[in-house]
């Protein structure tokens, strides 16, 4: 009887099912963490975005009020979105161009190349706070490195971070300092480009420029695509520079979206509105990512793709 039941039970659970359960069990530490620390907060932020919540009193349901306020009344919403778009639209392509350029240079067969690669990657390792403080010194209008060098060639430099017209470009220039991360990925991609393609191209008489545009660029376009997507997402979340260096100023010129969100949440304790801002940011980045994905069919070349 006992043996019988056991047998039935055994046959009831198929090998595949059992392995499946075992698999989930092994993944459960991550799954638990994901549910508790990612999915739950994400869902609750959606709920909070429909409430008025100052952290001390219980949340009060206000429906879509926060979203309506954002689009119809909040003057800083559009300002912050514009500042962020300005930053992302300029810094991401510039960052890609710079990192491809550096990767090309570092792909030469020169002695001591490993050392150069390390040097160019090093700034990426430095924490963003330290970087920000360093650049505050570099961009100091009076004794900063940048203006001192400019004055040597007879240019009187601007006030950089203290000048509303220059503050955003300053932060974009600064963002180029950490292109090392992207560079590393491009370097790997460049080394994957088959040497034979260049050989045959040069036999056909293609010069360096032609080779770059007709061979190198298409071959690394999947990598560019990857960096573009992550760059845009990261660019729209720009925060620490504004937080540490400029406090969103002068005169709201570096008041980025994430900084607006931070202000609403932790300065004004308006958690409901801040959550709504977070969801709209998600929608904005989602739309942009989708747009880039759609356009990628036109410019990203995958080897072995049938087109």
């Amino acid at each position, binding site marked *: 009887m006992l043996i019988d039941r056991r047998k039935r039970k055994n046959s009831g659970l198929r090998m595949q099912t059992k392995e499946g359960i075992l698999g989930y069990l092994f993944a459960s530490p991550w799954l638990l963490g994901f549910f508790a620390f990612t999915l739950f907060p994400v869902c609750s932020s959606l709920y909070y975005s429909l409430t008025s919540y100052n952290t*001390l*009193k219980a949340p009060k349901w206000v429906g879509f009020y926060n979203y309506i306020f954002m689009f119809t009344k909040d003057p800083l919403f559009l300002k912050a979105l514009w500042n962020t778009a300005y930053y992302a639209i300029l810094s991401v392509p510039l960052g890609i161009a710079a990192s491809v350029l550096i990767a090309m240079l570092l792909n030469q067969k020169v002695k001591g190349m490993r050392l150069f690669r390390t040097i160019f990657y090093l700034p990426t390792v430095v924490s963003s706070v330290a970087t920000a403080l360093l650049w505050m*010194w570099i961009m*100091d*209008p009076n*004794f900063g490195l940048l203006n001192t060098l400019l004055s040597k060639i007879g240019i009187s430099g601007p006030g950089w971070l203290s000048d509303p017209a220059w503050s955003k470009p300053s932060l974009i220039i600064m963002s180029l300092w950490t292109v090392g991360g992207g560079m590393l990925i491009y370097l790997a991609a460049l080394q994957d480009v088959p040497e034979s393609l260049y050989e045959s191209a040069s036999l056909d008489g293609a010069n360096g420029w032609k080779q770059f545009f007709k061979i190198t660029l298409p071959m690394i376009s999947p990598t560019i695509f990857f960096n573009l997507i992550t760059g845009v997402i990261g660019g729209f979340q720009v925060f620490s520079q504004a937080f540490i260096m400029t406090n969103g*100023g002068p005169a709201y010129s570096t008041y980025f979206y994430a900084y607006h969100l931070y202000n609403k949440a932790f300065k*004004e304790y308006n958690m409901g509105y801040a959550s709504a801002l977070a969801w709209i940011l998600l929608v904005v980045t989602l739309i942009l990512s989708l747009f880039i994905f759609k356009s990628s069919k036109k410019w990203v070349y995958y080897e072995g793709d049938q087109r």
Partner: protein
Amino acid sequence: MLKRFCKRIIPFVLSALMIFSLAACSKETAPTDDKTKSESTGGDGGTAPTTEDKAPKEKITITYWHIFPEGDAFKPVNDKLVKDFNESQDEVYVEDLGISFFDYLSKMDTAIPAGTGPDVGFNGLEDNAFRAESGVLVNLQPYIEADGFDMGQFYQAARDYVTHDGGVYGMPIAWGNRILVYNKQMFRDAGLDPEKPPKTLEELEAYADKLTKIGANGEIEVMGFHPALGNATYKDYLYQNGGSFFDENDNPTMNSPENLKTLDWYVRMTNKYGAKQVQAFSTTAGSTGIDPFLAGYVAMEVNVNDFYKKLLDSGIEFGICALPLPAEGGVRGTVGGGFNLEVFDHGDEAKAQAAWKFVSYMTSVEAQQYWVTQNKWPVGNQVAMETCEELKTDPNWQVMMEELAFAKFEKFIPKARAWWGALYPELEAAQQELKTPQEALDAAQKAVELQIEDYDAQN
């Protein structure tokens, strides 16, 4: 056989382990026993660790969070007071935790809503009203009455910050308002009498012109006076001009004539020696991380009175005086601000009683005198200040105490909590000459009105 056994047993063991570890997690958050209590207390390395017999079981243990972590200059005094309190009686035991100021705010912000906050917190006077209104604080009025504690011994403005609808929601501990500090050597070098600091805004401006040094390329080397360097903002000058941010009915008055007059002056004083030059100058002065007065960038600056300790340590020959007033219609006194001890409501009457015992000890004349003489940081207890022998013999303290009596209280406006956040960037825009003062203040008025509209719509 073994294979099958393993297959069946491993998942079981795994799931059992998980359940156990979860249970262990929840266990750890349960109230701690006496052993951990005595471990985390005190913190002044000099004395031997307190042993368990100092915290017998019948004692009520309360937690106290403050902003003086290891290495903080004010920590020894705070530690000593907590230790003295613990030794002075055997009913209450205070377990303290020092958290650096910036982490403190975020820790409080998350701990209070989660109900895991301390029994006593060292919190800002200015936002006491927010917590009181939200119902997280204990009203101390019944304890004050029961003990016959005289609230009249506190400075009026400090008391106003913690009194709401007849209830008292905190005990002012350390606070201050603003003073003008000036460099006597620079005064002498400019041919000014170092014993005659400016009394009016007109004098201030004339002195500033004499004290300012411009370099060969037109860059500013020393600025006589910059209204926003140091620890001062527009609001400190506004009250002196008889202006205010809100009227009696809590309606914003950001662009009233007094406010406009103040901002006109503020912008003119800022940009006297060229807007671009001043921009560069203040960035440089700020980037060293040292106070511009201590670094020798400015000859006069407005700062808070707990700056006194740094001045004494600096070796600069300095003078202290009241903020200069407009020659006509000036109103004396700057905004007071600082900290108070708040008792958090955890629904435990015995703990609240114990916490009251502690906060009333900390704000008593004796403890407050120890605080002010050691920390050189003014306290909320006016009697403690005025009867302190050490302060009586120090002319600088006399100047500061006179000013403290005139300190202003800034009313908390629940409907527009973030009004300063809306105003400040507009002031900056005016200083940068991107907007005229009128445009800037009109924009600020609109922004604050919007905050109120938003609040009304949500509540």
